[in-house]
């Protein structure tokens, strides 16, 4: 390219194409080409999030949530007087995710990494950042294992863990006396297995019976055989431990098969519940829903809709919180050194304009780095009560209720196997 410029100032087809592509890329990617000429290097934050595969839809929301956080921070002058820059990569699968993490750390020199959705990828990248001593905030992976047996000093979680989610839905199921004869359908990978374990504990602790259990490969498109098995086993409740596009397919086909059995799940991503449409039914635990009626939350949802033209899902929320948590750590530590950031976040309560939007103080536990927070049980809303196509859920309860300790739904210290490594 340099040579070409020397020999000719004429606009050749190749340079034209290169310029046009760069121009188009700049338009799509305003953050990749910051308009401001900076006196100082920006603070780079890496984001790993899935854009492909059965979790692909979540990534787009996660990126928008994180981008909005970065824009908010830069509008008020950045952090420590420096602009924030977000570099997003596709986490794809555990192998690729680790490669991308290395690229973010070594080539882009990010001060921290946030994101991750697949528990399998999160476990792999967690080991990697611990080796590299770079702060990571898990904003989307649910396995308890990430906070317990394989917890790390440099890894924090703003995403809830399976125990928090299952305690929330369990709380509702116990109250409604729905703990009796259950059928489990589980995604056959790290997240599903971990969720199945936690849900089984809930069932046995409340003297329920398991009448059947199936593992389905991720990316399953036809669930009819599993549904036939459920029908034959005659449970009182079907409890699914599925993720991503599998949730959409399963819930659609469940309704299409004419199933009327009660259904509940150990988690739901609204990005995958929206496309189910009017056939959606059941009760699910969720970390955040855009109709959550706290002033801060409603205001943020409105800002998001204005910026991106659609309401945020739970992953947009997760990555939004994670980026702000990193910024708060940098401000508190007055440094971008990961070891100092880790110390700043241990026991840190989210503050100021970004307190987690839930109307109660949220704190990172010092000993396992889990953000303590309430969960919400949502019920599928009848189509006749929808205001628009996004209006598929209503919040039926906040768990634990206000006034009760957030510790009650988290992994108890006595049961955790978490041993954090020393800092250096």
């Amino acid at each position, binding site marked *: 390219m340099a040579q070409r410029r020397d020999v000719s100032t004429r606009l050749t087809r190749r340079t034209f194409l290169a310029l046009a592509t760069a121009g188009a890329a700049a338009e799509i990617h305003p953050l990749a080409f910051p308009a401001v000429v900076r006196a100082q290097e920006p603070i780079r934050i890496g984001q790993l999030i899935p854009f492909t595969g059965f979790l*692909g*839809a979540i990534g*787009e929301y996660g990126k928008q949530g994180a981008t909005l956080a970065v824009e908010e921070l830069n509008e008020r002058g950045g952090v420590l007087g420096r602009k924030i820059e977000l570099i997003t990569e596709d986490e794809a699968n555990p192998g690729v995710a680790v490669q991308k993490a290395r690229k973010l750390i070594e080539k882009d020199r990010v001060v921290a990494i946030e994101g991750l959705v697949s528990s399998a990828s999160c476990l792999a990248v967690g080991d990697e950042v611990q080796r590299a001593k770079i702060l990571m905030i898990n904003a989307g992976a649910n396995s308890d294992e990430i906070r317990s047996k394989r917890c790390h000093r440099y890894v924090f979680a703003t995403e809830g863990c399976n125990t928090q989610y299952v305690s929330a839905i369990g709380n509702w199921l116990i109250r409604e006396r729905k703990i009796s004869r259950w059928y489990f359908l589980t995604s056959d990978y790290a997240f599903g297995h971990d969720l199945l374990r936690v849900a089984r504990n809930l069932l046995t602790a409340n003297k329920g019976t398991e009448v059947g259990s199936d593992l389905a490969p991720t990316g*399953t*498109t036809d669930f009819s*055989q599993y549904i*036939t098995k459920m029908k*034959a086993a005659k449970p009182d409740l079907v409890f699914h431990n599925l993720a991503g596009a599998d949730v959409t397919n399963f819930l*659609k086909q469940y309704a299409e098969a004419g199933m009327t059995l009660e259904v509940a799940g150990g988690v739901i991503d609204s990005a995958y519940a929206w*496309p189910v449409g009017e056939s959606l039914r059941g009760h699910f635990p969720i970390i955040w829903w855009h109709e959550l009626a706290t002033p801060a939350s409603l205001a943020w949802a409105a800002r998001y809709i204005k910026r991106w033209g659609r309401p945020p899902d739970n992953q947009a929320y997760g990555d939004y919180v994670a980026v702000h948590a990193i910024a708060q750590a940098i401000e508190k530590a007055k440094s971008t050194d990961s070891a100092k950031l880790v110390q700043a976040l241990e026991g840190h309560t989210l503050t100021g304009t970004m307190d987690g939007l839930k109307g109660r103080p949220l704190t990172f536990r010092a000993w396992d780095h889990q953000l303590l927070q309430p969960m919400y049980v949502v019920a599928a809303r009848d189509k006749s009560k929808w205001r628009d196509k996004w209006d598929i859920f209503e919040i039926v309860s906040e768990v634990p209720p206000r006034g009760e300790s957030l510790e009650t739904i988290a992994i108890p210290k006595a049961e955790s196997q978490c041993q954090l490594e020393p800092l250096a």
Partner: protein
Amino acid sequence: MTPAVFAEFVLNGLVLGALYVLMALGLSIIFGMIGIINFAHGALFTLGAYAAFQVKDALGFPATLVVSPLLVGVLGMLIEATLLRRLYLQDPLQGLLLTFGLTMVLEQGIRMVWGRSPKPFDVPPAFAGALSLGPLTYSKYRGFILLAVVVLIVALTLFLQKTPVGTIVRAGSRDPMMVRLLGVSLRPVLTFVFGLGTAFAAIAGVLSAPLAGVQPAMGVNVGTAAFVVVTIGGLGSFWGAVISGLLVGQVVSLSIYFQPRAAEASMYILMAVILLLRPRGLMGERWEKFE
């Protein structure tokens, strides 16, 4: 397992198999005529579903069954006429690489046009709900899929056996040189066959859309299964693809009942066994031009 449950499993397997058959027939006629393994088949299946999503509100579901395969078929013909055609005299690997690349371009294109989030696609109201057949209740829409696939297989058979173009396709598959010597130009036929094959992938996509979510990666598993089906049935064999598609549907379906953990592997195990016993596949014949 009660008879009703068993019957439902067989029906589920039949529907799964019927969709495999549609995919495999498209692949098989393309391979038979052009000698290229179309790696982009899964992506064209996805494109069929998205095309249907795009027009269904304006035209209604029944029209999508015609419009979507037509659009995707035309795209297929353009691909043949502009890209694939240049590679016929080259190493067959080139065609494989080209269609493999096309898969990525198409999938990424879909992400750019329609976004990454799955699109809602409800079962058409006329087919919502279940049919009651004695002790058995079965989804109306799945019944419709079976019917539609039977009609399509019959139509394709009639086309290949009874029409002049069908005769050229059959003859051209076996001995292109002789067809040319008889004064028939194969060029437009090759273009047409590629379009027809991709149209079949698109119809499978439209039929799947109300069941599986419409999302960019929806064709990956189905595409892979279609290769397995064609390999088991015998490359280029029409009835081989039909029988093998139905067989694979049953094997996958029943293994979910008896050995759920082996369900994903079952079709590959079947393929390995069949290839050991009959290396050309179930109905594969010795074709001069591929030996």
